[in-house]
């Protein structure tokens, strides 16, 4: 109940997002009437709807994540939550839920009407529709948590930002190195699995970092930043280690690529 109370509170004053979504929806629907060929018009409206809905949902999640705690902290208003009998998890989950709900609602409002009106959705399997919404929602979660962490790192203006920069750089350099090794062995599917695993692990790490920022940092932005930095550094280290073990295992158990020379390919 307390989580939902926080969620409801977060929605207050954010109705403008839904108005924007409704406006985008109208534009997507109108695009149908500017096309002479009905089939193309319907395809165009469907595409516009899916694109507008997904893009808006992701932008809302990104902006919400960047302000959900750090702005309250910077404006010294986070104490309002801490003065209530709310656990840190209730505050954090309530805010995350509000962001996801707002992004999902905005995305559906912007995209669904034109998709439904075009009628093309009847030709798409329910499984695929679920996958589209699932990917959209997963993207929202990743962006929300990522930008929450980044906004804490940037707004606290502490020296821990140096560690963050080193960690982010090392992490992406590590992922690139592992990806190149898998690509060298033509293990493209394993590479995609590696990326998905890192994304899932990274999202979990971002979620834990976000929770610890609220639970341990509380009204102290710099202390919260410290917890975010340490958690993300540990997460990045563990993920790279796991990725390295996985890559080594794949390379060891994969048959070597047979490079056969073709007479026509030989360079003179």
């Amino acid at each position, binding site marked *: 109940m307390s989580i939902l*109370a926080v969620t409801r*509170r977060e929605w*207050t004053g954010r109705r403008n997002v839904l108005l924007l979504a409704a406006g985008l929806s109208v534009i997507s629907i109108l695009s149908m009437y500017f096309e002479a060929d009905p089939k193309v018009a319907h395809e165009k409206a469907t595409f516009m709807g899916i694109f507008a809905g997904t893009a808006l949902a992701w932008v809302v999640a990104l902006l919400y994540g960047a302000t959900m705690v750090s702005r309250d902290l910077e404006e010294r208003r986070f104490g*309002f939550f801490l003065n209530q*009998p*709310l656990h840190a998890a209730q505050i954090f989950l309530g805010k995350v839920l509000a962001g996801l709900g707002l992004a999902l609602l905005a995305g559906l409002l912007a995209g669904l009407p034109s998709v439904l009106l075009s009628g093309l959705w009847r030709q798409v399997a329910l499984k695929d529709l679920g996958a589209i919404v699932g990917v959209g929602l997963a993207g929202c979660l990743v962006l929300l948590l990522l930008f929450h962490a980044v906004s804490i790192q940037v707004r606290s203006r502490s020296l821990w930002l140096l560690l963050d920069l080193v960690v982010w750089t090392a992490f992406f350099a590590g992922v690139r190195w592992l990806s190149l090794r898998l690509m060298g062995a033509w293990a493209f599917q394993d590479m995609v699995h590696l990326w998905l695993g890192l994304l899932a692990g990274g999202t979990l790490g971002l979620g834990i970092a976000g929770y610890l920022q609220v639970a341990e940092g*509380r*009204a*102290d932005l710099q202390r919260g930043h410290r917890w975010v930095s340490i958690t993300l550094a540990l997460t990045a280290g563990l993920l790279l280690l796991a990725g390295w073990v996985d890559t080594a295992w794949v390379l060891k158990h994969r048959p070597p690529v047979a490079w056969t020379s073709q007479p026509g390919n030989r360079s003179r």
Partner: protein
Amino acid sequence: MTSQVETLPIACHQVGVRYGRTQALNQASFQVEPGQVYALLGRNGSGKTSLVRCLLGHQKPTAGRVELFGQEVWSARQTLMHRVGVVAEEPDAPPLMTTRQLVRFCGSLYPTWDQAGVDQRLGRFRIPMDLPFGRLSRGQKGQVSLALALGPKPALLVLDDPTLGLDAVARREVYDELLGELGERGTTVLITTHDLAGIEGLADRIGILHQGRLLVDASLEDLKARHRKVSWAPTQAVDPTDLAPFAPLWSRTGSLGGEAILTQGDPSQVPGLQVHPLSLEELFVALVGEAEVAS
């Protein structure tokens, strides 16, 4: 001993707060008894806000221990906040929420919420219920914060400079509300304020923080009994050195005569000296001034 400590609304043990190289609070120890009104005074930057943040579990002290009702605040914040009402120095409620929405939000979090009491208070303060909090005047924001803080019928009320920026009428209303609450339920109150005249009739005990140290922790009655204010006319031949036996805390002489605050003995027998009642403000200025000279 143990049971008494457990029921103490506030107990601070050697609390320290450090920001980098700056020691904001240094080994502050004090207790507040049930039903007491404890006024925490100090100049800007004396460490009051840091102490209040530690008391409310917003900040972890770098040293020492802060307990409310026998429980360590940092680890038991959520449970303790059921029994604590807070009015922050800067009204911190979300600016886009209306008073009605704020009351609904807070009411849903406390099983002891007194909806009728909150409605009555807001009615007395003449607060527009459907105006966003951010658009209320400074005084109205303070009044809404006080009404929300008293809503769950708290056992402890923490007021961080609740009269800051309020006009005389709004200040009076805040104190009247507090007096009503104290008379009705005997709530324990910790209040930080710069309004020394306003708090004088309300406080039982005074703590004075200066440069992070708790300079004074005593009952107002004791403080006033220990200190006496005297003055003398310019025509009187009183030399400040004559006051040495009375251990003057502070003294000054000028063309209009002189005055001093004495810390021991009975100066009424000294010819030419007039003894006056001492206000909290005079005492505060003398104590803090003395500490500044000493440091």
